[in-house]
């Protein structure tokens, strides 16, 4: 397939693998975090770690939108469907996220909730137009990549004068999550999470640009290389990170220049700013409450805010005690360090959110890499 196969070429991968081995100083270790679930998935699916030397370790970061969604937010969506009787439209991945009372959206659907999987916010809008006598709520989750389409849906609903469409806004911000990891005691004080640099997000960066990461490079002295989601992108980014570390540099470099500029997508950013504003705080799974890390709908668009339209307030719910998702999302633990990994918690029966999405660290390791645990 044109423009796809080129970025998955085995020959080029072998060449890069040799270059990485030559560049990596055998006298030291390199610990890089790939922030995004998309990178985690590519690394696992294509077996990228098999092509890296032993002293280069990838730490899976929290950039999986489903994984960082706290239980209380899924509970709200379930209440909307079961108690408020709305048609709840959701992205497919979210259906299986475990919520309170042994429920998930999928189980709530089996209990009679009208819960529908959609591919985009535009599909949810169509559902609202096709069901004028029902209230339709779009369960909006995700980082900066999925935020602009939600903003478009809200603006279109306003233009169409739709009275039965609203959005449960759970959009979160990448830079806040990176700050939280860099400020965590494991990284800053105790050094239990050694972090030599970041692979920066691909799709998120097409929207926000490369500029927001410059702060991390300067302030925390951590190199950042923005990379595409194809496996060759990831390997090239690892090579660029190793070179920065070797040379003692800490700057933002852009491997994904075919899609990312310094400014990003200004039109999309303006649209988001028009429809959304910062929440004072937002709870993340694994990172707890992070100040100014989530978005809510501005009061000018309050008619389309499901939190205002329906009596569903957010109630924080603690994770299962045995679940290590929090530590795994912060890079403190690996999936296989969790006692319930692969036993009680499997993709068929996920306890924690990292086991739900194929972008989650636990699901990626279970699905693609667990043979390594037996070697």
């Amino acid at each position, binding site marked *: 397939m044109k423009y796809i196969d080129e970025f998955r070429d*085995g020959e080029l991968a072998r060449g890069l693998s040799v270059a990485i081995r030559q560049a990596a100083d055998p006298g030291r270790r390199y610990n890089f975090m790939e922030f995004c679930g998309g990178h985690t998935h590519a690394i696992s699916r294509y077996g990228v770690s098999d092509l890296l030397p032993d002293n280069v370790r990838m730490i899976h970061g929290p950039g999986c939108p489903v994984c960082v969604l706290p239980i209380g937010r899924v509970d709200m969506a379930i209440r909307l469907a079961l108690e408020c009787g709305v048609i709840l439209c959701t992205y497919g991945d979210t259906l299986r996220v475990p919520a309170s009372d042994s429920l998930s959206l999928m189980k709530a659907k089996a209990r009679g909730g009208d819960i529908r999987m959609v591919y985009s916010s535009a599909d949810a809008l169509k559902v609202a137009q096709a069901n004028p006598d029902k209230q339709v709520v779009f369960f909006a989750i995700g980082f900066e990549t999925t935020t602009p389409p939600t903003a478009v849906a809200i603006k279109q609903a306003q233009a169409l004068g739709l009275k039965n469409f609203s959005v449960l806004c759970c959009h979160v911000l990448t830079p806040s999550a990176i700050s939280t990891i860099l400020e965590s005691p494991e990284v800053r004080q105790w050094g239990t999470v050694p972090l030599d640099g970041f692979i920066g997000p691909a799709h998120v960066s097409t929207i926000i640009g490369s500029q927001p990461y410059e702060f991390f490079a300067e302030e925390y002295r951590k190199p950042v290389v923005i990379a595409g989601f194809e496996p060759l992108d990831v390997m090239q980014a690892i090579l660029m990170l190793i070179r920065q570390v070797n040379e003692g540099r800490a700057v933002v470099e852009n491997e994904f220049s075919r899609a990312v500029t310094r400014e990003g997508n200004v039109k999309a950013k303006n649209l988001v700013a028009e429809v959304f504003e910062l929440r004072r705080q937002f709870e993340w799974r694994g990172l707890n409450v992070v100040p100014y890390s989530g978005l809510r709908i501005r009061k000018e668009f309050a008619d389309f805010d499901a939190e205002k339209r329906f009596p569903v307030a957010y109630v924080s719910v603690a994770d299962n005690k045995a679940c290590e998702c929090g530590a795994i999302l912060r890079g403190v633990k690996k999936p296989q360090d969790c006692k319930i990994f692969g036993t009680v918690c499997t993709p068929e029966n996920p306890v924690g959110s990292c086991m739900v999405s194929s972008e989650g660290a636990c699901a990626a390791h279970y699905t693609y890499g667990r043979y390594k645990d037996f070697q």
Partner: protein
Amino acid sequence: MSEVKRGYVRPLDIRHGRIDLSHGSGGRAMAQLIEELFAAAFDNEYLRQGNDGALLPVPTGGRMVMAADAHVVSPLFFPGGDIGCLSVHGTINDVAVMGAKPLWLSASFILEEGFPLADLKRIVDSMAAAAREAGVPIVTGDTKVVEQGKGDGVFITTTGVGIVPEGVNLSGDLAQPGDRILISGTLGDHGMAIMAERESLGFSAPIQSDTAALHGLIEALLASGAQVRVLRDPTRGGLATTLNEIARQSKVGMMLQEKALPVNPEVAAACEFLGLDPLYVANEGKLVVIVAAEDEEKALAAMRAHPLGQRAVAVGSVHEDPHHFVQMTTAFGGKRIVDWLTGEQLPRIC
């Protein structure tokens, strides 16, 4: 006593008529539907007996195989086929992969009130054509009607009976370390044809379902004399799930070569677009073969000589593994597990 004269009976209005509850009531309307639609299309000596069950000759020698398959696909019509031929092919394949020669089929219909008779006729004609082409008659059946909203047009359950000749011994637990894994053609065509047909996604390049009866291909393969251990048709869950089933049954591991996997470019593109993996997408006319390593070429040659096996290739091999993992060397040069399908990739594909 007066004799009631048999008067003119108005035939079914196939073009404009719809199924109503009387078609499932057991009365005249049902008898007419069976006579004018089902019996007319499926006609054969056993069905003509007109009894509650078909009276069949007992085959001599061999062992019998019986397999059932329920079909609920949505949409009912898709490029390359429809629920009718799919329900015939699916059951024939389940019988044939046991090494059996399929003999007879049954067909049960659950119809939804309001379903257009014209669509039903299209489906029944497609079933009849598929059965005729395969040489496997539909010898008995049943019809029920449910109220509107309680079905989805039509559901079809077929059962097949076949006979395994002496000397043929195929089972999912017979794969051995060293064996080779073959596939008869491209992966994922059926699942992606269904997906592309769904309302929200209009791909311009039409992807055709691969639905087909495989007993001819299987007969040719077995006639080659190759030591075949396991046959399966990789339907729901795709090749990945089928191989995991075999690995678990046979208590072995498997290693696939991603580069060897045959995928049509339009299927690969559609999968890429939707974030699906062709390894997990359903096929309805493909055969997975586990064969002794020394007979790999013999089996491939026999398959390639058949129209349904022209693109047959070896995709991997069987080895010892206490964990029964199916693994794959990626085209990129790494290694990974090819796990069971989790949840469902696509709803109601067969």
